[in-house]
C-alpha cells in the first residue's frame, strides 16, 4: 500500500491552517481593533514566593478609584470601570481601539489569602497586588526528637 503523501504545507499539523483561518476571520469581524487587545477582561500575570503571591494587571487610563479588589478565601476579584470617554456631537472619531465599559474578573488562587495582609499598588497603569498566606495555613516545620 502506498503511504499517503500530504502536501508539504500540511505535513506538520493540518489543523494549523484551520486555526490560522479562524484567527483571520476573527480579525475581520472584530473590526479595526488592534489585535491582542483585550475587549472584556484585562490580562494578568502571577508570581509566587514562599508564602505569598503577586498579581499584576495592565489597566492603562484607569485611576485607583476605578478599580475595586475583593478577596474571599482563595478567590480574588478585580472589578474595574474605564473612565467615560469624551463625547459630544462635535467629536469626530477616527480610531477607537481602547476598551470601554466595566469588567469583573475572578481568579482562583492556589491558597487561601489573609485579607489583612494585602498590598495593592497602582503605578503607571499597572496594578500590582501582593497577597500573603494566613499564618495558620503556612506549613510548619516539625522538630523530630531523637530518642
Amino acid at each position: 500500500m502506498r503511504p499517503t503523501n500530504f502536501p508539504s504545507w500540511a505535513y506538520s499539523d493540518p489543523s494549523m491552517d484551520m486555526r490560522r483561518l479562524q484567527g483571520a476571520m476573527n480579525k475581520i469581524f472584530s473590526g479595526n481593533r488592534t489585535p491582542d487587545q483585550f475587549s472584556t477582561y484585562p490580562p494578568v500575570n502571577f508570581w509566587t514566593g514562599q508564602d505569598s503571591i503577586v498579581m499584576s494587571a495592565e489597566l492603562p487610563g484607569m485611576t485607583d478609584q476605578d478599580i475595586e479588589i475583593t478577596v474571599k478565601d482563595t478567590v480574588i476579584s478585580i472589578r474595574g470601570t474605564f473612565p467615560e470617554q469624551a463625547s459630544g456631537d462635535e467629536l469626530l472619531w477616527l480610531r477607537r481601539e481602547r476598551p470601554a465599559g466595566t469588567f469583573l474578573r475572578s481568579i482562583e488562587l492556589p491558597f487561601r489569602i489573609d485579607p489583612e495582609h494585602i498590598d495593592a499598588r497602582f503605578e503607571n497603569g499597572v496594578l500590582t497586588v501582593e497577597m500573603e498566606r494566613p499564618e495558620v495555613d503556612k506549613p510548619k516545620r516539625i522538630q523530630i526528637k531523637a530518642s
Partner: protein
Amino acid sequence: MAQELTPQSGRDVARANGETNTGAITFTPAVDIFERGETTVIMAEMPGVSAEDIDVTLERRVLTLRGKVKSHAPEGYQRLSSEYREGDYLRVFTLSDEIDQAHINAEFKNGLLRLELPRTTEAQPKKITVKAV
C-alpha cells in the same frame, strides 16, 4: 487625518528601524484618536512606562510615539503564569494636516498618553466668497 505607518516586521510586534534585537519586544500601543474642532486628540496606552521614558517626536508630518518600559516584575518571586508580556511601545502616524508645533499639549497619566495637536491657522479651512459679477 492620522494615517498609520505599519512597521514591516510582524503585525502586533513592531521593531524600531536599525535597532538590534535585544531580546525585548516592542508593542503597538492601542490608541483612540478623535478630532474636536481644530484639535486632534490622540490617546495611547503605554502601561508600565514612566512619564520621563516617553518620547514623542513630530518631524514634518510624521508623529512617532515611543515608550520605554521598566520591568515591574517583583523581586524574589517566581513566575507562575503570564497572560501579558512587558515590552517597549512604538507607533508611528502620518498626519494629514500641518500642526501648530508650539501649541502641542502632551500629558501622561496612569499609563495613558494624551496628545493634543492643534492645526495651524494656515491648515484651517478658509471660506472663499464667490462674487457675483
